[in-house]
């Protein structure tokens, strides 16, 4: 059943949102359907968000997903509305390097003070070490890695990574983009989603 008034194959709402994103209007409609499949909860909560991230994109880090949710929720009203969702997905799936830098840094900066401190880094990288080599101390290893990362990222040498530090470093070395944790989808999952979501959630499939 078509809910919103559709003409031209997509809704007015979609048209409005699509202007700010890398999606076409049909795609925005599909995303809106994904966001709110029952039509009853226009505000996505953390659990649903995590379900999507985990189910579709295979993400596992709960802490990170929580942070991502915070970032998606741009107006910080505790829930992710449809527009926020679509805009967030635009960066998530098809963002340019600058947009991605912006997004990633926001996720990593837990307390939102504009810097990523050593403690935050330590905390993050600790979860990254999975198979600790025998004879090594976890803390030592993580501290070492933090040192290394700081060397590369902390350009103004103030002991913490500011946004401009991060942006400059990543522009020079793209590998550093997700240096504190995976917050963007894996290539395979991304491709898979992009090629199928239109059929799966698009308005036409609902008709």
């Amino acid at each position, binding site marked *: 059943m078509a809910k919103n008034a559709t003409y031209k194959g997509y809704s007015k709402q979609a048209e409005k949102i699509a202007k700010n994103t890398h999606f076409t209007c049909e795609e925005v409609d599909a995303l809106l359907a994904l966001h709110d499949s029952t039509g009853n909860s226009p505000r996505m909560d953390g659990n649903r968000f995590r379900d999507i991230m985990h189910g579709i994109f295979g993400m596992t880090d709960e802490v990170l997903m929580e942070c991502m949710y915070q970032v998606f929720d741009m107006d910080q009203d505790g829930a992710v509305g449809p527009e926020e969702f679509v805009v967030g997905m635009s960066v998530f799936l098809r963002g340019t390097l600058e947009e991605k830098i912006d997004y990633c840094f926001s996720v990593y900066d837990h307390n939102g003070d504009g810097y990523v401190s050593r403690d935050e880094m330590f905390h*993050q*990288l600790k979860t*990254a*070490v*999975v*198979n*600790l*080599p025998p*004879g*090594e101390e976890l803390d030592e*290893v993580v501290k*070492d*890695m933090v040192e*290394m*990362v700081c060397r*590369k990222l902390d350009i103004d040498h103030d002991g913490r990574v500011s946004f401009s530090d991060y942006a400059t470093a990543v522009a020079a*070395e*793209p*590998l*550093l*983009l*997700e*240096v*504190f*944790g*995976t917050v963007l989808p*894996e*290539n*395979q999952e991304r*491709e898979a989603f992009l090629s199928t979501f239109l059929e799966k959630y698009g308005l036409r499939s609902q008709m």
Partner: protein
Amino acid sequence: MASRRPSLAVPGRDSNQSSVDGRRRSSVRLSQGQVEELKSAEEDGAQDGDDDQEDDEDSDEGEEEEEDLYQMDPQTAETSPDYWQIHKMVKYLKAGNATCTAVALVGLKDCGLHQEVCQLALKMVGGLEVLLNILRTNNLRCNIGALQVLESACGHVTTRATVYKLGGLQVLQGLVGHNSVEVKGLAASVLAQVCALSTARSALIRDDGIPKLVSLLCGDPNTLCNDSEMGAAVEGAARALWACSVSRAGRNALLRAGGLELMGRLLCIQKTSLLIPVVGVIHQCLTETAFRERVEQAGYTSSLVKLLHSPSKQLQVLATKAIARCSVLETTSNRLVKEGGLEVLVNLLKQEAEPFTRAIIERDPAFARDTGLINDAPGGGVNVSRKASMMPDAGAASQVQEQVSKDNGENGEPPEGQDQDEDTDAGGGEGTTVGDSELLEAVSEAIWHVSMVPEHVTALKDLTTVPILVALLHHDDEKVLTNVVGALGEASCDQECCMILLRGGGVTTLIQLLRRTSDKLLLNVTRALGSCAADNDALDALLQQDGLRLLWSHLKNPNCRVQASAANAICTCLQRETEELAEVVRSLVGGIELLVSLLESDSEAVLSAVCAAIAKIAQDPQNLAIMTDYGAVTSLSKLAVRENDSLRPYLAEAIAACCVSRETGLLFGQAGAVAPLVQYLETDDSKIRRPTCRALHRLSLEPENCVTLHQSGAVPLLLEMLGSEDEVVQEAAADCLRNIRLLALQRCKMQTTRSARSTPRGNHSSRR
């Protein structure tokens, strides 16, 4: 991996930051076994092709041996500070999830992997296995990082070998087909490095890896300049294909996949780093004749000529080598001359030959002036009109004059820069090699090939190439010498060039070069001397300097082609037919015997040349007697039955020359030379008819031979000859028939007298 404490570094034994890539290219001499392996591994091809291949393979294959050398050096690797860093990074690579891996990869990239020590270290801590495992995952970022690390690490031969043994080829090949352009390009780059090993190369070709690489090249060349990712990918693919095209199988695969055309399209792009592998591929492919034709048809030669101006030395050398190879084709040669490519080459030659031209100018200023070598001489310009013309005709003189003035203008800039560098060389110009003799070798080879077409010799003369070539005769490098002598040999067919050669002391140098042992060089030298000897003055010089004896000594050379060439040269020398010359020939110890013994040779070329020489020598009766003593008659007669058309004219000449008396005629007849000779008349070729008729004429002086002639059915053939347009043939045939007829008449007379004597008895029937 157990953690280790670094040993106390011995003072002074600190991290040997060894020199980087220079070592990689050193050509270690192959052991005999490896050379055999190489030869059997590649299919047999044209001799030149193989030689070139071997040269290329040499520098690559030498690395297999180097592997053993470097195994001795783990200690040095261990004591370098980077070693522990690398060790740690590899540990972290294995220790965590994708994030951790990314961090570790970034750390690895910082470790200075372009140094050999670090590459070794990476291998030793097992980093390569981990990297390859990472490549087998799907994580895009990590793949890119791992590929980047591998790209730097595979600079060393041990790393490459390890990567290959660990099955890296399959992984990399898979990645060439990846979606992401960046990954494709990086994978191709790494493949390019790994395929420097011949084992890896063959494996890649067998696994059909080439078509995938070729498909990377597709795409509009114009957009490549803007799109850096695509550009990097194309570059990587080109480099990989270059590495593969070193082997014949690779070249064939490349041709089948249509790679040549795609490469050609890329020739118009201005990026040097892309052009180098592209020209490299084309250069390798030109060893195959089929490729040469295609390259010529596609017209890549013009683009290659443009590249000769490139500032990059490597590109220049490669382009010149490519042109040298394809200029063997006459069409390419013509194109070079027409489109001005020859001029560019000659300018390049002048540039490279600076010290040598300078040396010759100092040694013999008059020569330099006359031949137009002098440009901006010190003390004001040399007055062009003052030059005493050594050229026989005025036309050439004016040409040279023009050239001098052109040179005055042209050579204004280039020598200046080089002057400062080569000032120290000026005094000892003779023995010094200009920094890069590779370029000189290629340029001289190109010029040699161009000069093989007679019309182009004039063009070369106009560009005053010949005096420079004469100056280059003093170069050290044998390959350069071979090419230079080859070019001079072709040019000496022209009399003026011959004179320039003579005046510049070229004949002397050539005779000195006869003492060398290289086959190719000797072949060219003998050929050059042979064509010089056509000119009287040069011949005088040659004989004065004992050239004949030296040439004769090369009849002993094991290589048949050299023998034939030497014999040809000797033949040209003997054309004068003087008493002294005959004396000289006689005086050569064992000379005539050697010559006659060559009649036993298997090679057709040798036989023809020797017969021609014998024909000349036999003009002197004493020498003829000596030759007969050594069994020349029997040997010549044995050869008479050969079917070879190219041999026949020379053989007939030789027989005609040798058969001056009835006795020798008889010898020939007894040796069975007559009947086969008759068959020679069955051809239409006038080159064969003439000497054959003369030979038969001489042979018919001996009555026995006349009988044989008659029995072999010579008469009808000779009658045909009477109708020939050639006077010599007519005369000889007529004389021959006359002799036969005379004999027949005599026989008749004898029979009639015999029967007249016997008629009183009246019982015997008369025989007709």
